[in-house]
């Protein structure tokens, strides 16, 4: 690699309108939710606040590489944290890159993994109200995910049904660090509700469940925690497949967000090989696991995998299926992928359209 890498990057076509499948908006502060919370929960938010199985009230014990996990140049000039200023986001992301639709994923504060479950449900509702009023209705390019409390299936289903049919919401989101592997049956009703309402599940790595961040225990460094996102999603995908979520709910679509995707083919090969020897344990899987993955799952590109030989990425994308791949920037995070320069392998016109736009329009039903 050298500074000629930029020249090697595929030259952007005449400006293709993009769909960005991972945009992070943000609250300026928890007080932004006050208009959407009852008195009781406003007070609770101010006092007891957000409580998760993590040791600090104000941070993760794996400190990130940059404040607010964000690029230094995304702090809005008018104040506030990165992603909290719509006007700045429009200028710096949506307008600059010709983004015709951006899928919003809120990371903090969430109601999705609160230990107080009533509070969690109230927060989810407030967050969804806030997203609708202050984001998706303010810029029609932005689409929200219905955030739901994943450990509380009845509350999650109620939240899905409340927003279903509202075209500002294109998917259902729950934290990926669930207390049980996400394919387990306690989560099935949530998936069934999403599928019944024609909504994909968008799984952006997030949340805390009290388990160590690897099956081998607690790592030391953010370097490891950041990489563990890709590793943990392998377990999540395995669970969805092996528990039969896809065979049970053929209409269900699942999008894996912000985990990269180069790990998917080798996971598929491993799942298929071991399934072949253990089919008797899982008779509900009537087909090789990789088939379910390649029919009912989609993967965002960010953080873009960077093989030593950039062309090796084409093998990965091709094996997954060009229709499975969804471009994402992850704006404003520090490992943001620039739409013009992040894709180092040259694509055909058709591949480019699919990856940067058409696949997302299809999965998220933007043309209905």
């Amino acid at each position, binding site marked *: *690699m*050298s*500074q000629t890498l*930029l020249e090697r990057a595929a030259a952007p076509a005449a400006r293709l309108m993009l769909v960005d499948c991972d945009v992070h908006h943000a609250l300026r502060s928890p007080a932004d939710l006050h208009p959407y919370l009852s008195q009781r929960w406003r007070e609770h938010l101010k006092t007891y606040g957000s409580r998760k199985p993590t040791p600090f009230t104000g941070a993760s014990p794996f400190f990130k590489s940059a404040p607010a996990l964000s690029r*230094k*140049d995304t702090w809005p000039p008018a104040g506030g944290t990165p992603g909290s200023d719509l006007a700045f986001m429009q200028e710096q992301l949506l307008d600059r890159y010709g983004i015709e639709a951006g899928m919003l994923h809120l990371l903090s504060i969430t109601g999705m993994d609160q230990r107080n479950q009533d509070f969690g449900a109230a927060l989810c509702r407030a967050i969804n109200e806030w997203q609708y009023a202050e984001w998706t209705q303010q810029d029609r390019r932005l689409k929200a995910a219905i955030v739901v409390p994943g450990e509380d299936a009845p509350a999650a289903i109620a939240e899905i049904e409340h927003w279903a049919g509202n075209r500002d919401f294109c998917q259902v989101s729950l934290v990926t660090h669930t207390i049980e592997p996400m394919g387990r049956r306690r989560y099935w009703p949530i998936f069934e509700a999403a599928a019944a309402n024609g909504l994909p599940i968008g799984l952006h790595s997030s949340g805390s469940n009290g388990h160590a961040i690897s099956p081998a225990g607690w790592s030391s460094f953010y370097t490891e925690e950041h990489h563990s996102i890709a590793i943990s999603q392998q377990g999540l995908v395995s669970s969805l497949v092996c528990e039969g979520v896809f065979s049970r709910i053929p209409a269900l679509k699942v999008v894996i967000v912000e985990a990269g995707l180069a790990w998917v083919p080798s996971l598929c090969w491993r799942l298929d090989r071991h399934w072949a020897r253990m089919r008797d344990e899982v008779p509900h899987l009537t087909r090789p696991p990789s088939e379910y993955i390649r029919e009912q799952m989609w993967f965002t590109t960010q953080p873009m995998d960077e093989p030593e030989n950039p062309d090796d990425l084409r093998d990965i994308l091709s094996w997954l299926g060009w229709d499975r791949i969804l471009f994402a920037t992850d704006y404003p995070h520090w490992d943001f*992928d*620039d739409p013009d*320069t*992040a894709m180092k392998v040259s694509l055909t016109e058709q591949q480019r359209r699919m990856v940067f736009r058409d696949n997302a329009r299809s999965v998220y039903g933007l043309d209905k």
Partner: protein
Amino acid sequence: MSKHVVATVAEIPPGKRKLVTVRGRSIAVFNLDGEFYGLFNRCPHQGGPMCEGILTGLIQSNEPGHYEYSRAGEILRCPWHGWEFDVRTGQSFCDPSKISVRSYPMEVAPGQTVVQGPYVAETIPVTVEEQYVVVEM
């Protein structure tokens, strides 16, 4: 090649920087203890705006758990993915032989010299009393 005036010395105090454009190239100019260095404003990784990055010291180690800190303020982190670059040379620290950002040697020239020419000073008025940061490109 011609000599271009990019700034007055006074407008870039030690530890500060200025973003300039010379012959269509966007260059970030840094003052490290009175010496000036210019780096191309696009990171070789994905083109991030180098001038917006933070300056840190250099952390090295031969032994896990031991940290040697030196060269405070001389390492530029790309504001996007955090790659470290030596402001003085443009070399990356992750792969110094293969990854670098183009560096432009900067000089200080006294106003008298600059006034005599030939210098290109499109946007900066030149007087004999001042000192100027210049680059040859």
